[in-house]
């Protein structure tokens, strides 16, 4: 068990000495990542309590009054009921003996008169009557179903949980132990909700699908292909797909009534929200496929709209025909070809040439592309809301050149950088860091440049590029908070600590090629 070279303490005193000498140390990247998360969450003072929910500690309503119906189909209802009754019996016995457990997929439904629980099977369907509630536990996912919810369990694989919510509300908590390897997807009639972060609510009604996020980040893909990243404190509503026309063309162009409905109609509650164009691939999730992100050939695509509400009151945004809210000038359509997309070539008024390669893994350049023109849209603005048009990236970073980014946007940017780096997508994080270096307040610029240099050095292993970036740091931030560390690293990289010529385009080239 013990390696020959390992010191072997003989008693607890020696063990304590050993622990003191060889205590766990937090490495630089981890330290910086955690620091950014803490700062992002505490920025602006109060408001951290929302994030202080215990991990995995979604407040679970007592399985309340109800009489649940669980069936896979009508034909299987009777068998299902029998199986559930047996499972519930086992569940009670086990729970009585062992206490609550989250191991194995389980469910609980109940009423004022009875409560049932048991093991969850793939294909199970929950149809709750009015006032009923249910709870599901699958791996690290906990779902609380209410509001007459109708939910089907498509996959109970703890690493790939899939739920179909046809009606009602599901409140979900998802705290994966293996980030990037565990997935949760909620399919509704109008959207796919793929979880990047952790606690959120999905509500489905005749109007569409509403997603409210309490903690973390959720990626919502509308049926029409729009991609929206919804961060903590934000919510988005994706309207149910109908045959009604949604014109999303550039400028004053209207789309024929047969065009698919896009998710341009968006309800925003009090925070930055991006209703993306179909070409946009979420930077935080490279698994998005072009086929999901692109509309069929020849269709007009929805306008990229993003709105930041200054109040918690919902603002609604609908198609582009109305007179108000002409946000940006029109743009000439460009031809776009994306391998694997639906149809080899589409005409998209959304895309600028720099944005054509929206395949996974290519987004460093994609995110660094210049601000493309946005759309003309109708904005039904609530009197107390402030609407700002931004580019349909999840962070709307391209609009920062036009308006000073808010502290919330900057915090969201840091959050996404963390997400990308945690997933090992360092190249993609560089583009966001460059934006922060340009448009964020000086303290964030300082942090962003240092982080970019360190990422290039430690994660991407490009010492020459890193040296150039550290030199740039010395030049730009002669009193920067990382100056001492930067000088140390410059010396370690074989460069003079000061006076190194700065790279001509270090800030412009986040996607610089690897240097051996």
């Amino acid at each position, binding site marked *: 068990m*013990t390696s020959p070279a390992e010191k072997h303490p003989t008693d607890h005193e020696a063990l304590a000495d050993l622990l003191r000498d060889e205590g766990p140390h937090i490495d630089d990247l981890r330290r910086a990542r955690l620091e950014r998360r803490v700062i992002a969450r505490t920025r602006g003072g*109060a408001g951290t309590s929302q994030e202080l929910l215990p991990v995995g500690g979604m407040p679970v309503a007592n399985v309340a009054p109800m009489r649940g119906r669980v069936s896979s189909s009508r034909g299987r209802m009777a068998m299902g009921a029998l199986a559930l009754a047996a499972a519930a019996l086992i569940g009670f016995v086990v729970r009585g003996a062992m206490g609550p457990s989250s191991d194995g997929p389980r469910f609980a439904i109940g009423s004022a008169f009875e409560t049932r629980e048991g093991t969850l099977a793939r294909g199970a369907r929950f149809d709750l009557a009015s006032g009923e509630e249910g709870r599901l536990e699958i791996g690290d996912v906990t779902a609380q179903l209410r509001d007459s919810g109708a939910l089907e369990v498509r996959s109970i694989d703890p690493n790939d949980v899939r739920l179909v919510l046809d009606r009602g509300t599901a409140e979900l908590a998802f705290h994966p132990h293996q980030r990037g390897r565990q997935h949760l997807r909620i399919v509704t009639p109008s959207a796919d909700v793929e979880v990047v972060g952790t606690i959120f609510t999905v509500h489905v009604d005749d109007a569409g699908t509403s997603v409210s996020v309490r903690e973390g980040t959720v990626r919502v893909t509308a049926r029409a292909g729009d991609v929206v990243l919804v961060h903590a404190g934000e919510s988005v509503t994706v309207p149910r797909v109908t045959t009604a026309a949604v014109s999303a063309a550039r400028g004053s162009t209207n789309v024929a009534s047969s065009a698919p409905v896009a998710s341009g109609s968006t309800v925003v509650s009090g925070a930055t929200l991006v209703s993306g164009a179909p070409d946009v691939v979420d930077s935080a999730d490279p698994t998005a496929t072009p086929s999901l992100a692109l509309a069929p050939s020849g269709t007009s695509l929805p306008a990229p709209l993003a709105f930041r509400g200054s109040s918690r009151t919902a603002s609604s945004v609908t198609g582009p025909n109305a007179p108000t809210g002409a946000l940006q000038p029109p743009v000439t359509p460009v031809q776009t070809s994306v391998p694997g997309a639906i149809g080899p070539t589409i005409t998209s008024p959304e895309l600028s040439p720099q944005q054509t390669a929206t395949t996974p893994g290519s987004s460093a350049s994609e995110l660094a592309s210049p601000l493309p023109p946005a759309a003309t849209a109708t904005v039904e603005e609530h009197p107390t809301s402030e609407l700002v048009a931004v580019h349909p990236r999840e962070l709307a970073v391209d609009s920062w050149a036009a308006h000073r980014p808010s502290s919330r946007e900057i915090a969201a940017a840091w959050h996404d950088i963390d997400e990308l780096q945690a997933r090992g997508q360092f190249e993609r994080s560089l583009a966001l860091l460059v934006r922060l270096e340009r448009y964020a307040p000086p303290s964030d610029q300082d942090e962003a440049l240092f982080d970019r240099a360190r990422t290039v050095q430690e994660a991407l292993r490009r010492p020459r590029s890193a040296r150039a970036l550290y030199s740039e740091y010395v030049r730009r931030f002669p009193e920067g908070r990382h100056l001492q560390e930067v000088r140390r690293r410059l010396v370690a990289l074989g460069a003079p600590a000061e006076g190194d010529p700065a790279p001509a385009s270090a800030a412009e080239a986040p996607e610089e090629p690897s240097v051996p």
Partner: protein
Amino acid sequence: MRVAILERAGESAAPTEAEARVFERERLLRAAAGDDDAMRALYREHVDAVFRTACRVLGANDAEVDDVVQHTFLAAIDGAERFDGRSRLSTWLIGIATRRALDHARARHRRGRWSRLKEWVGLGGAEGTAERPDARLEGKSVADRALAELTPEQRVVFVLHQVEGHTLQEIADMTDTGISTLHARLGAARKRLDAFLARDSESSEGGAR
């Protein structure tokens, strides 16, 4: 800490303990009010101790360590008004980290009971439990394996007292536990560790032969 105080005051005289605590409290309140620099300074000064505490309660490679560290600072900011300066800020933060880490460890312990039942009835292997933060201890250092022998509560008192040097009174304040209970846990922890180390030493010597 001392450097920061000197910089602030611009004086060469060493600050008294009371001055240091007042400054700590002021900085905590500034951080809670949204002062980024205060928050960064607070984080940078204490993150090592908080991280070390979380690692020792949960296991160094535990995926929840980052959550505990993060939540510790957020909880400190949220409860800044409750910090009265009677103890050092570091002690207060380690207390928060300890309680958070213990919550995680206990939750895992509860989940582990179900796994152990499954294992007992032959329905699968047990997962890591709170007593054994990493069930796959092959290749771990002897220190990790030794700490894994302890319950989370025993681990806390052993690490905080024996390794980090906190007094039992401080640990009692951190964990809301009586001193006599802590004494008992510490004694049990030492016994368990001594027994494990003796066993491990014998087995490694036997393996070497």
